[in-house]
């Protein structure tokens, strides 16, 4: 009897220890995502695909400094615009142009005061072939290639700028038959990287980091040959109450943020 009571007590104590342990583990698991910072928030950001690499670098630094959790979605500005107009949960929008953030402000879906130009795009003529491009103008004029890839000028500001460059060089008509269009600048890059197109116009940020060309050969197009590619960011309705979203906008606009942006080949803000 005494013995039975003893084992019963032991079992009871074991069970209570297990319960306590379970509670603690549960507590740790719940705390884990906050990384120690209880004021940390999650920010959901829609980013134009040309800004993929710099945005990843920016958010990495930002997350390290603030403890906030930044979720990035990359894609075409036109698709993001349609999704945001139809209730997508993004809190910030980094567009590839100025028109779409302006239109969102006009629709009451974004905060007018928050809109600012976070980057001015740089255009580059790029080939995966290291010997293809010497002087860009001569390479284009000689036209010794089968396919020249650009982003769709109707959809992508970089595509429009590429057409403006060809017009400025008076080559638009002669090269028309060789143009292939990607739906966005990321696809134009794919066409060239897979060597299906011999060369093409892409964003500097796609092929350069810290001013160094990753591979192939390239010609940095002088910005005088096309209209400036101004890219605006805006705080969306879903982000109005998020301090983290506002902090991220401020960080991108800050000197430290703009230094990161410039490292990826974007022209400085004037």
């Amino acid at each position, binding site marked *: 009897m005494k013995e039975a009571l003893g084992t019963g007590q032991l079992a009871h104590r074991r069970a209570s220890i297990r319960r306590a342990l379970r509670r603690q583990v549960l507590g740790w698991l719940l705390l884990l995502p906050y990384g120690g910072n209880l004021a940390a928030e999650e920010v959901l950001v829609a980013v134009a695909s040309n800004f993929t690499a710099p945005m990843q670098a920016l958010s990495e630094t930002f997350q390290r400094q603030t403890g906030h959790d930044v979720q990035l979605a990359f894609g*075409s500005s*036109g*698709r993001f*615009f*349609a999704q945001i107009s139809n209730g997508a949960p993004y809190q910030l929008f980094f567009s590839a142009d100025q028109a779409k953030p302006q*239109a969102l402000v006009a629709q009451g879906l974004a905060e007018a005061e928050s809109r600012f130009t976070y980057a001015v795009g740089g255009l580059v003529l790029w080939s995966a072939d290291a010997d293809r491009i010497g002087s860009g103008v001569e390479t284009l004029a000689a036209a010794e290639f*089968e*396919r020249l*890839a650009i982003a*769709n000028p*109707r*959809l992508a500001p970089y595509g429009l700028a590429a057409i403006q460059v060809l017009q400025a060089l008076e080559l638009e008509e002669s090269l028309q038959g060789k*143009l*292939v*269009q*990607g*739906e966005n600048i990321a*696809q134009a890059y*794919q*066409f060239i990287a*897979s*060597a*299906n*197109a011999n060369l093409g116009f892409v964003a500097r940020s796609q092929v350069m980091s810290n001013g160094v060309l990753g591979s192939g050969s390239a010609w940095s197009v002088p910005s005088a040959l096309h209209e400036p590619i101004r890219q605006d960011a805006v705080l969306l309705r879903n982000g109005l109450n998020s301090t983290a979203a506002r902090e991220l906008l401020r960080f991108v606009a800050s000197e430290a943020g703009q230094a990161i942006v410039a490292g990826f080949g974007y022209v400085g803000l004037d």
Partner: protein
Amino acid sequence: MGLSEADLTAIFLTLRLASVVTILLLLLGTPLAWWLARTRSLLKGPIGALVALPLVLPPTVLGFYLLVAMGPNGPLGQFSSAVGLGTLAFSFWGLVVGSVFYSMPFVVQPLQNAFEAVGSRPLEVAATLGAGPLDRFFTVALPLARPGFVTATVLGFAHTVGEFGVVLMIGGNIPGQTRVVSVQIYDHVEALAYDQAHGLAALLLGFSFLVLMLVYGSRRRAGTGMGW
């Protein structure tokens, strides 16, 4: 509805692409389906699975690897260059090759089912009556498998008309060559030209509905006539 000239070009290109692809698929798919339906080979499993793969793979994934394969350094690209065709990406025939891969299961599987449903008995009976192998195939197996051919043709055609991801990846958006209706609609949407997108999408929807309705209607009539 206000269709632009570019819209019309896209519509005719799409119909041409779907027709060419459907004809090629019937020519390639019929022997393949016949073999799959009747073989006892160990290869039946792997080949059947290979044919069905596009059902599972996301079209953009398939399209991306087709793009890489069609490039000058890829196996398809080296083959097409070697036989003097150049590289296939950004051309009508590139889209045909991509679509044949992509729509293959939609043609082969109904045909295979139809051949399996015919079974070997009618063929054995025909053989005892003195019909040779080719005669048995064309005068016995093919007519009995007719419902399967109708389904295969419609699905192959419709699936190619609705194709988007693969074309987006290997097309290059060239008017009259690779800018098909689905891409044109996508462009309208991306350019925020929603009115034009609505018009073209409504036309595509109406056309698809009409074709499917005619085929399913005629299949039922044909089916009852044949005692199915």
